[in-house]
């Protein structure tokens, strides 16, 4: 057997590889020094400057490092004071924010009214090109920081006045009853003076006023570590000693790692794995409400979709429940309202019969509206495989229930989808999606149905109602007015509500106190089981 030697070598090599693998995997779990640390699966954040990111991943990290003036109480959708002591106004236009005494940044600098003013000015300053710039558009002086042509003459919002160390006066361009709620958004977090010396460096290593501080450098595409802040003295004191955000390029891999016990918390279990996750994880699998909604929009500027009866007929011909069960394992909630259930002012059946599945009624209304001739093209992006699944189901139902025979699916690359809609290239109903910024009907209605909307829909009554609601004296007075506006939009149906998303959360046996809400992952509340 003269070959034996080479074969032995090959086998030996394989054996070495295997044994190396064994040694490796055993060191994957918790290490002694890190016993009070847990890990969270995350996608690589784009930025870590509060004013320059609207991505959920970044906000998950920033929510641990920063504290905004208020946060949102998940049960009622109302603001709770955090870095602010109070937010008040008599006319909804000029707001006084009292900053909580004793708050400090982790570098020792006290959190003052000036810290907020500086941070907000930087975000609103056009040439910085920061994502959350538009959140400051309703503060007086915004136009001066963002002129249509040329460089701005100032980098200070005239509507921000620092009265004293703990009082900030904000003047808006128009009354806005929802202002306190908006202050929960990460864009309104304060930044210390040191940040402005080098904004680029700060983006890599932010210093904040939150329950955690950065622990070592941001290791791009690998991990971000934070640890409990010794200087934090607010309400959200961290239970665990430290958190590691493990960065994944795909949700599927993150889910596999959750199953292997290599990551402790995953808040985005992929839809295809939910049934399995529910079975495997038992009570360590949670479904939490979310503010995100899917809609089917109409290009109302195209005269073939100008009839409101036709649009309502489409809505009645779609069996939302069947689609949600088939595509999302019943995890998403079929909607008969333009607002997500957790938004104050939500009414379960605001839409009435126009959102109830009724094939016969749909067909009658469709014929009455004159039917539809030619090719019906349905538009969506390729960002997620489930979009094509549900769009195909919608196409089948329209074919079956309304008798539209010629239906084409138009799948557009994700990078091209929004610019196509912006340029109004779509010639048929399209997938529209809205991720809530803050729980107010205004966040849905004004941005999606208000002036300059994608559908090309114009309605003066709707616009007037929104304006009235925005200047109503306080939150409670504003809600009935927003509801009236919602009724107008539902009656006209330029965009059909489809379903509301749910988050699928899974966690390991190592941690307890998981409290994921649409507003915060509340990582401070999680503790690591000892032993």
């Amino acid at each position, binding site marked *: 057997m*003269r*070959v034996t030697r*080479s*074969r032995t*070598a*090959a086998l030996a*090599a*394989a054996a070495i*590889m*295997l044994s*190396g*693998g*064994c*040694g*490796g*995997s055993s*060191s*994957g779990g918790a290490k002694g020094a890190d016993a009070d640390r847990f890990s969270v699966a995350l996608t690589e954040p*784009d*930025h870590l400057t509060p004013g320059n990111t*609207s*991505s959920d991943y970044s906000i998950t990290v920033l929510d641990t490092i920063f504290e905004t003036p208020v946060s949102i109480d998940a049960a009622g959708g109302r603001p709770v004071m955090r870095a602010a002591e109070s937010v008040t106004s008599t006319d909804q236009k000029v707001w006084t924010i009292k900053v909580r005494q004793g708050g400090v940044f982790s570098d020792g600098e006290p959190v003052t009214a000036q810290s907020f003013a500086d941070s907000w000015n930087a975000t609103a300053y*056009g*040439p*910085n*090109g*920061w*994502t959350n*710039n*538009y959140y400051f*558009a309703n503060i007086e002086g915004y136009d001066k920081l*963002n002129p*249509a042509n040329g460089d701005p003459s100032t980098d200070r919002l005239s509507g921000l006045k620092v009265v004293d160390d703990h009082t900030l006066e904000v003047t808006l361009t128009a009354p806005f009853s929802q202002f306190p709620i908006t202050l929960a958004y990460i864009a309104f977090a304060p930044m210390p003076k040191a940040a402005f010396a080098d904004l*680029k460096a700060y*983006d890599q290593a932010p210093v904040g006023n939150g329950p955690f501080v950065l622990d070592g450098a941001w290791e*791009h*595409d*690998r991990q971000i570590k934070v640890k409990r802040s010794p200087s934090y003295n607010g309400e959200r004191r961290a239970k665990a000693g430290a958190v590691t955000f*493990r960065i*994944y*390029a*795909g949700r599927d*891999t993150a889910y*596999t*790692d959750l*199953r*292997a016990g*290599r990551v402790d918390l995953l808040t985005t279990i992929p839809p295809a794995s939910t049934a399995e996750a529910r079975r495997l994880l038992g009570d360590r699998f949670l479904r939490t409400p979310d503010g995100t909604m899917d809609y089917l929009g109409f290009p109302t500027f195209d005269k073939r979709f100008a009839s409101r009866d036709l649009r309502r007929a489409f809505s009645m011909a779609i069996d939302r429940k069947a689609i949600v069960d088939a595509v999302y394992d019943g995890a998403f909630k079929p909607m008969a309202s333009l607002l997500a259930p957790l938004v104050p002012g939500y009414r379960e059946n605001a839409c009435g019969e126009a959102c109830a599945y009724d094939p016969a009624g749909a067909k009658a209304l469709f014929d009455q509206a004159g039917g539809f001739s030619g090719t019906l093209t349905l538009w969506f992006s390729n960002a997620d495989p489930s979009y094509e699944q549900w769009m195909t189901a919608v196409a089948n139902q329209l074919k079956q229930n309304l008798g539209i025979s010629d239906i084409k699916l138009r799948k557009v*690359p*994700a*990078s*091209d*989808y*929004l*610019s*196509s809609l912006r340029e109004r290239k779509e010639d048929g109903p399209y997938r529209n*999606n*809205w*991720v809530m910024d803050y729980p107010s009907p205004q966040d849905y209605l004004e*941005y999606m149905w208000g002036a300059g909307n994608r559908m090309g829909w114009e309605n003066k009554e709707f616009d007037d109602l929104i304006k009235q609601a925005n200047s109503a004296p306080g939150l409670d007075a504003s809600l009935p007015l927003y509801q009236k506006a919602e009724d107008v939009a539902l009656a006209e149906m330029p965009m059909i509500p489809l379903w509301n998303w749910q988050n699928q959360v899974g966690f390991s046996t190592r941690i307890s106190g998981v409290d994921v809400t649409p507003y915060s992952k509340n990582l401070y509340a999680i503790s690591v089981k000892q032993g």
Partner: protein
Amino acid sequence: MRYAARRLAQAVPVFVVTTFLIYTMVFALPGDPMLALAGDKPVPEQVLAVMRQRYHLDEPLLVQYGHYMLGVFHGDLGETFTGQPVSELLQDRWAVTAQLALTAWVFELVVGIGLGVLAGLRRGGAADTAVLAGTTFVIAVPVFVVGYTAQIVLGLGLGLFPTAGTDDGWPGSYLLPGMVLGSFGLAYVARLTRTSLVENLRADYVRTATAKGMVRRRVVGLHALRNSLIPVVTFLGVDFGNLMAGAVVTEGIFNLPGIGQQVFQSIQLQEGPVVVGVVTLLVMVFIAANLAADLLYGVLDPRIRRARA
């Protein structure tokens, strides 16, 4: 040496042409990268304008390319849309892909040649049949199927390997992905070695050597195998470049932050400078790997070396 220098000089026009082609392709992709970055959220026109200006997206292709090349001459590869310098990013990711490709390559080389020799010497036997069947199977099954299956069975089920990530460093974290990535090439190496060895064992010089009374081990090792390895070396040279490029799928499955993952993301985000940077590097590796293979011929077969001198 002149040969090596000439091969290296060829890299310059290749560099210019590739970068320009890639730039044109990224430029020709439909859509507006700035809008895509924002997702479903509205972005004020002012912010879009500032960002477009910052990345020269408001200028024609040639001007953009000019800016890029000018930067390259100053040692600046530009930055990503999130403000990370491309050079820094490549440095971080390069190491990951190189470790992965090297693991896969060594796996191919050792196990592939081993299996090929085993099959070649026992032509028609059970071992030969098993190697032929096994390699056919591996070639037929797509990499992502092998990858996910290996991850679920060997990683999650048996716990032999970490499921994903680079926490365990090299080699721990790279063994399983390396074996998955290398499995395809391994099948070819094994088959090439086998066929070529079978042929050489029938060659006159082997018969002569055997007739002269040389022991079989020396006949096989010194004569037959050495000649049989020439096509294998060609393949392994080309394949090292392939492995770098083929890492896209494997890195995705095993969440390794390498070049493959980066190029996939960057194409989606239409980040011209990043794509160009990565692809240029890949081209360089291809050239270098092929050069190394060509030089190795000379070592294996002196006739090739002398013919060129």
